[in-house]
Each structure stands twice: as structure tokens, then as C-alpha cells.
């Protein structure tokens, strides 16, 4: 099927195209040179539209056990937001933490064509992939969690070489069918199992005998040396703690120059100034990102309203559970690998802390100079549901809109923020970078995030509107692998999407010690732990697309 999109105003930062009027060709699943299409092929006049590649969410909790726990606990949210199915779509429910089908539809309706689950526990990887396979419309991928697992901590305590650690990291990536590695509160989740309630970056855990810094260091190096494109994805220590910005900046240093991605950095950018001993350290964090070229970050912007926080960080979820709303919380220790914590939150603009959190996120966006190194996320659903992205884009692109909202915040919070003085307004080109080009680049998805001939035809067409929020909320057309799946904000065809993975090479002899470990201590056998491509397709229901690793 060939389609010519005629007269579009194109934003393709990978090729430095900034609003140029041009035609885009689609041939089967790929973008092609529009001039090569037959004159009588279907053509759509989109001269009143702007065009970007399909958007990519770098960090969104859409699958796995913790998400199902959150769905169970958010019963009121699901009852209030259920929807019918039709001849195309399945029914579903949920706003803050939607059911799988619902999540896929809502993403596609906003022009997203891929989303990446950032907290896949190795032992829970099958379930995460099952849930993602039941999330239609978008491509998926996962970051597998290490850094609190007894196997790695034991290796480090025993003085294992970096190359042996690399082999283990590569083995886990292969076994779990993931595209990246994430560490959550390095060593802290493990220490919490031994009743340690806090763990600083340079504190030796009494439980494991290693420091979080050492863990971040060996894992960031492992990811780099294996040639995995996505840097180590780091949820730093001390999430939510006033004064944690120092830990965050120190964590950047723990990578010792190799690439490192700090996630939901808003939650890690707090100072201790002021009467309330809680302040914005966005300036210091942005400065550190600007200075350290090996560092990228996604923001984890909060929005006001009801949501639920789901995290692998049991230690800090327990620390914060008293602030939950409604008052219910779950904490779970998991398989000598990790943990999870689920706490509902209602962020309020009249709350000093919440209002300042909102400001801090925006301050970071506006003070990081390079849009290729800061990513638009709400850490769905932790800061807000992903459906708030169009509103967030408007906050970034429209200073007066932003300042109007700011003026409604808690007065105490207003006094503690210099947000109104920031006159930066993101351009469409910059939005295209942070939601398309940069995520594709940092994930190693060479055929996505741009609109050149040969790219996968994931394309979003927005009808120009004065209200940028409305424009981003309801694209005129969305194409996924060349198929028109959304028209005027409505789904017209459903597709499945694929699973993006990396499979770095490694020395297979690592399996010898792993087999001993599994036989002695685990309750699942090593052979059943590994997920094959065949199982992904036949049982889990998602086709695997492997991306190359490029060793430095």
C-alpha cells in the first residue's frame, strides 16, 4: 500500500528539518521518497498539518506485577473510567493505571507508536511481556532490573572482574528479552530486606558489603562495554528526600564518564532551603546535566490530580507511604532480585510540596539546554498518567499558559520558585527532538524517530491549531508501520506492535555459576527462567525485533 502525504510541514530533527513544507511517501511499512511513488497512488492533502515521526515514550510503567497490583488497588479509578469495546477495540478501564488494551489505544490516539517499560524484574519478565503483548497499537520494550539482586551483589563482594559482570548483565538481557538495564536505588532495595531504612550513595550496605556507587559504576560500565545503546537507566538513591540533589549529582559521577541516564530526575532534585526545609535544586541539577555530556535524564513531571506510584524502590516507597492518598500501600520483596512498592498519590496544587514538585520538573525542562538529553516523561503513572503529555507540552511551549498555572499554586511554593522568570518556550522542533528523535537515538532504534526514506513508517500528523494541547491530544492521522491506525483522534485499525530487544554477546561459561546459583537458591530452574524468541511469539504473543550492540 502506497500513500503520499502532500504538503506537510515537517519536523524531523534527525535530518535538521524544521518545519519545511514537503511531501512524505509511505510504501508498505516504510517511508519512501514521495517522488518515487506512482502518480495514481493514494494521496492525502495535509497542507494544514504538521508531521512528526511517531512519538516514543522512554519510560512508562505499562506492564508487570507492580502494575497489576496498582490496578487492583485503584479500583475506584477503574470503576470511574471504564469504556466499551467495538468491532476494532477491546473494552477496558482505568485512567491512572489503565488496563493493557486501554493503554495501547490511548497512546495511539496521541500519536505515540512505542513505549518502554522501565522496571522489568527478571523473574517477572514473562508477565511484563504478556501485559505488553496485550498492549496493542505501539511497539514495546523493557529495561531489566539489576543492582539489588543477590547474584550481582555476591559477585561484587567476591571481587568478580568487570568482564564477568558484563557476561552476567548480557545473560540477563538475553534471558529476559529486554533492551536495556535499569538499576533502582542501587543496593537499597536489597538492604531494605535486612531492615535498613536508608542507604546513601557512598554508604557500605551492611547487608551486601558494597556501596550504591560501586553498583552504578560496574553496571554503567557493563552496559557501555557490551555495546548496548541505551545507557544504564538509573533511579538514583534517596528518591523524594529533601536534599537529595547532592546524591543525584554524585550519581552522575559514579558513571565515571560512561553514558548514564537518570530517570524521573524531578523526584531527585530537591534541596533543603526555606522554612519548610524543602526547596528546588533544579538549577543545580540542570547545570550538572549541561556540564556532563555523558548524562541524559527524563523528568518525571508531576501533574495535579489522582494517580498511583508504582516503583521497584521498596525502601523509598515505604518511606513515603504515609503521604499516600488514599491511605493504602503495598510493599513486596521479590525473589532475591528486587522488590516493588505501590502507593496511590493525589498531587494537589495547594500543597506546598506538590506545587514545588510541579515547578521543579518544569524548571529542569527549561534549564537543560540540550533537548537531545532531556526527555518528556511523567514517569507514568508515578508523576501523572501519560495522557497528560499534551498538557505538559503546552506548559513547555507557552510561557503565559505556564505562568497562569503557576499563579494558582500554593503561595508558599510560588515564593520558592523562579519559574515565572524563565522565558524559554520550547519549539515544535525541540518537542520533536525530546519525544521522537532523541528517544529513538538513545534506545538504538535506527529506523524510528525520523522521517527519511527507509525509516519505519511510524508517522503522526497533527492538524495545526492555536491550542497546542488540543493539537497534540488528537492527531489528524497516525500511521504505524505504514497503516493508518488513527484518524481524527479515533482508532480506525488495531495493530499489535513488536518487542524491541538487544542480545549482546557474552561468554557462555557464566551459565555454569548461574546454574549452581539457581539450583541451590532459586525456586525456578535456570532453563525455565530464560525466555526464547519462540516463546515470545508463540506463548507471549509478541514478535521480537533485535537491535545491534556496538562495542566501543
Amino acid at each position, binding site marked *: 500500500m502506497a500513500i503520499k502525504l502532500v504538503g506537510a510541514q515537517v519536523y524531523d530533527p534527525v535530518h535538521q528539518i524544521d518545519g519545511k513544507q514537503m511531501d512524505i511517501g509511505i510504501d508498505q511499512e516504510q517511508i519512501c521518497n514521495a517522488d518515487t511513488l506512482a502518480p495514481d497512488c493514494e494521496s492525502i492533502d495535509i497542507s494544514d498539518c504538521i508531521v512528526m515521526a511517531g512519538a516514543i515514550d522512554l519510560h512508562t510503567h505499562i*506492564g508487570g*506485577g507492580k*502494575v*497489576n*497490583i496498582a*490496578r*487492583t*488497588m485503584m*479500583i475506584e479509578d477503574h*470503576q470511574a473510567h*471504564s*469504556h*466499551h*469495546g467495538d468491532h476494532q477495540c*477491546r*473494552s*477496558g*478501564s*482505568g485512567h491512572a493505571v489503565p*488496563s*493493557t*488494551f*486501554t493503554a495501547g489505544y490511548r497512546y495511539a490516539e496521541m500519536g505515540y507508536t512505542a513505549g518502554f517499560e522501565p522496571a522489568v*524484574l527478571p*523473574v*517477572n519478565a*514473562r*508477565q511484563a511481556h*504478556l*501485559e505488553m503483548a*496485550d498492549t496493542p497499537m505501539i511497539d514495546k520494550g523493557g529495561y531489566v532490573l539489576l543492582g539489588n539482586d*543477590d547474584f550481582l551483589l555476591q559477585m561484587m563482594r567476591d571481587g568478580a572482574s568487570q568482564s564477568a559482570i558484563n557476561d552476567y548483565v548480557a545473560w540477563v538481557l538475553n534471558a529476559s528479552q529486554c533492551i536495556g538495564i535499569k538499576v533502582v536505588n542501587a543496593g537499597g532495595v536489597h538492604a*531494605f*530486606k*535486612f*531492615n535498613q531504612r536508608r542507604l546513601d550513595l557512598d554508604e557500605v550496605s551492611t547487608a551486601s558489603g558494597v556501596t550504591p556507587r560501586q553498583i552504578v559504576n560496574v553496571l554503567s560500565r557493563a552496559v557501555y562495554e557490551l555495546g548496548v545503546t541505551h545507557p544504564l537507566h538509573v533511579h538514583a538513591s534517596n528518591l523524594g528526600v529533601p536534599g537529595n540533589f547532592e546524591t543525584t549529582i554524585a550519581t552522575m559521577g559514579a558513571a565515571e564518564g560512561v553514558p548514564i541516564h537518570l530517570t524521573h530526575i524531578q523526584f531527585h532534585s530537591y534541596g533543603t532551603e526555606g522554612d519548610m526545609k524543602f526547596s528546588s535544586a533544579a538549577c543545580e541539577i540542570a547545570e550538572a546535566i549541561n556540564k556532563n555530556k555523558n548524562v541524559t535524564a527524563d523528568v518525571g513531571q508531576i501533574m495535579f490530580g489522582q494517580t498511583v506510584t508504582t516503583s521497584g524502590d521498596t525502601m523509598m516507597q*515505604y518511606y513515603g507511604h504515609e503521604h499516600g492518598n488514599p491511605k*493504602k*500501600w*503495598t*510493599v*513486596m*520483596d*521479590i*525473589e*532475591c532480585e528486587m522488590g516493588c512498592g*505501590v*502507593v496511590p498519590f493525589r498531587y494537589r496544587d495547594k500543597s506546598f510540596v506538590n506545587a514545588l514538585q510541579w515547578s521543579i520538573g518544569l524548571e529542569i525542562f527549561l534549564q537543560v539546554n540540550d533537548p537531545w538529553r532531556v526527555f518528556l516523561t511523567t514517569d507514568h503513572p508515578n508523576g501523572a498518567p501519560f495522557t497528560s503529555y499534551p498538557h505538559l507540552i503546552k506548559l513547555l511551549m507557552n510561557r503565559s499558559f505556564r505562568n497562569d498555572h503557576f499563579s494558582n499554586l500554593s503561595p508558599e511554593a510560588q515564593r520558592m520558585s523562579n519559574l515565572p522568570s524563565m522565558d524559554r518556550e520550547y519549539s515544535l522542533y525541540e518537542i520533536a527532538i525530546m519525544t521522537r528523535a532523541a528517544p529513538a537515538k538513545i534506545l538504538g532504534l535506527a529506523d524510528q524517530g525520523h522521517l527519511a526514506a527507509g525509516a519505519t513508517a511510524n508517522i503522526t500528523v497533527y492538524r495545526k491549531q492555536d491550542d497546542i494541547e488540543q493539537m497534540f491530544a488528537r492527531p489528524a492521522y497516525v500511521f504505524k508501520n505504514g497503516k493508518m491506525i488513527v484518524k481524527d483522534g479515533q482508532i480506525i485499525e488495531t495493530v499489535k506492535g513488536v518487542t524491541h530487544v538487544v542480545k549482546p554477546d557474552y561468554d557462555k561459561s557464566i551459565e555454569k555459576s548461574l546454574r549452581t546459583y539457581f539450583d*541451590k*537458591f*532459586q*525456586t*525456578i*530452574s535456570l*532453563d*525455565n527462567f530464560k525466555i526464547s524468541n519462540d*516463546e515470545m511469539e*508463540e*506463548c507471549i*504473543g509478541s514478535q521480537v525485533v533485535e537491535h545491534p550492540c556496538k562495542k566501543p
Partner: protein
Amino acid sequence: MQFKHVTCPQCGLLCDDLDVSVNDQDVTLNSNSNSVCQQFFIDAKLTDKSALQPQIQGKPCTLDEAVAYAAKLYTEAKQSVISGLIADVQACRSAFALAEKTRGVIDHANGQGMRASTAIMQRYGEVRTTLSETRNRADCIVLFGAEVLSKFPRLRERILKPAETLSGSTARKIIIIDVVANAELAADKEIEFFHLPLPNLETAIQQLQYLASPRASEKAEIEPAIRQIHQDILASNYSVLAWTASLFAKITAEQTLQNLTFFIKETMKIKRCVGLPLGSSRGEITANQVSTWQTGFPLPVAFSTGTPEHNPTIYNADTMLANSEVDLLVWLSTYSPDDTPQQYAKTNIMIAHPNMQCSQTADVFIPVGVPGIDQRGLACRTDAVATLPLHSIRENDLPSADHVLNLIFQAL
């Protein structure tokens, strides 16, 4: 043919370290002599080839005929329910698609047994652990009811008393509380067995909860053994409270689980203390997980209005069948021939284990392959964390439940 690392869905532990030999349609478990564990494999033996054929009202037919007739029954039904749901992930997925398309109700055979646990998670949230975490980390494990051991035959060997642990020590307190005598456990050197002079386990749990409660007045009449157990928990570094909700009276199960949750959360303020609910011996967790991610709701779910609704009072499958509120029952049960419906509707479609014999002749009976024997599949373990592969180790012509459900879906 010999197979290693076979997974057994006979109980919620989903042990996957089994050696199994297959000789034509005979399947033999070699690696474990426990009779409960053996049962899944004994049940799967196919002696009667006619059992492989679908039936319409007791008469053999082709699969196409059975599917067409099932579709006809669906179109004639006013209100359908899919129950059983004793199946792997893939079959559960297809069952939900069918329930949605037919605006039916969907529930598990043990739906009522799951309600209390779901309600506590919805209302309060929980503090939980998993099997490997317990095996390696626990220094004090408290089991409520000796029957937990017989319901989970390899719990002791694999979780309570493993040969080695990550901590390097296998020394730990294993406490079992019960209100009936058990001479074997009383004589067991590895277990501290407390036979309490209390009317039921629920009272013991209530007393334990009193001890963690700040309301001192409630602590008056507490069994000395409960006080001792409380001290043991406080003296340990990682205590695990394990229970099986089916041992609690249904009418008060929610209160009992609430007491356990409150106790654990209160103790967590100073020490690590966690819960380990043991269940899913009929695939409850698998069915509930699929329900939760696909619809956003735990079981039961009704699609009567087109949107998924979760109301365990109105849409309880057993009650609906008892009150004749449904006129079509689709019973999905693939692991054991004994998991038959307790109640029937006016018309009944069985998608079932090939050796199943029901007390009532089904309008349509479609025998399907057993997941883990005849079909590949996936199943969720009792701790709702590990999802394990079920392997195909035997060849025959039995279709998968998933395939059959899809055929009916397509015929509608």
C-alpha cells in the same frame, strides 16, 4: 521420551524441577514420589481414545460440529457465564475475549475463595514476599494450619527447610499453629507445633493482631503461645507469616486477612515482617492476573453493559448459577478431571480435561489438551510474581483450549 525441568501445575508452587517420562499417552513423574504431585501426571494418562473426541449431548461429533453447536447455544442464550477458568494464560486470554464478545460474566471456579484477598489488596494494600525470598531470607516462618503442608506438598522441602540458603544458614524457626492436634508435627524436631485451645485459627490470628495493636485493653486474654510467637517474630530479622485463605471460614476470611495485614504492617514499623499467601492450586492467580491486566479489574468481571464491571456480590458465578440467573455455562477446566462444575445452567458447554466425567451430560463437551502435558502454556505461581512455562511433552490430536475458544469466538 524423558523430559527434565517439567513444570507441574498441581498446586500453586509450580515446581519446575521434575523429571517426567512419556510413553505414548502414558506420563510418569519420576523425580518425586509424593502422591499429590503424582496426581497431575496420573490424571493425564489417556486410556480411552474416544475421550479425544468432542460430543454433542453425549454423542461423538467432529470439532467443527461441536464448535458450531456451541456457537448456536451462545446465540440462543440470554445470559452466559464462563467459569472454571482453570487454565493457562493463553486460554484465559481467549476466554476473556469470548466473554466480552458475548456480554457474559466471567469468574473462576474458586472465585469466592479469592474475594477476601482481593478486597484486602483493594482496601489496604499488603506486605508480601515470594517463595525464593522466603527460602533464603526467612529466619522465622509462621504457618497458620498444619493443612498448609499437605496442600503444598513440597513446601517443606523447597521453601521451609532447603538444603542451603543465601544467608549460609539453614537454622530458622518454623512455627505451625493449629487448633487441632497433630501428633506427627508435635514430634517433629524441625518444627515448633502449637496446638492451641482456641475454637479456630481465626481467633489465634485475632489474638496475634491484638498484640501489635496499640489498644492495650484488647490484650487481656491472649494465649501464652501467641505471646511467645509474637516475641519470636520480634526477635527475628525476617519473619514470614504464611497462610492459605481456604483454611479460613469464608464468612470471616476478609476480617482474618485484614488482621494479618494489620499485624504485618504494624510490625514493619520496627522489624521486617512479611506475608506469604499460598493458593492458586487451580490456577486462580493466572486467571486473576489476566483479568486484571486485560480489563483493569480482578475477577469476577461482567461485560453485560459492554464495559467491564467488577461487582463480586452481583456477578458471583456460583450464586448466579444457583439462582438460575444464567442460562448458559461455559466450563473451562484443563488441569484435572476432578475439577467439574458444582452447578449447571440450562445449557452447558465443557471445554475440559480429556478424562473429565461430569455428573450431567453436557450439551457440548470438547476435550482439550492438558497444559504442561499436551500444550505449551504459561502459568502464574502463588506469589503472583513468577510466571512459568508449561511444556508440551506428549503428542496427540487434542486441540488447545485457546484454539477451541477462538473457534467459538470466530463462529459468533
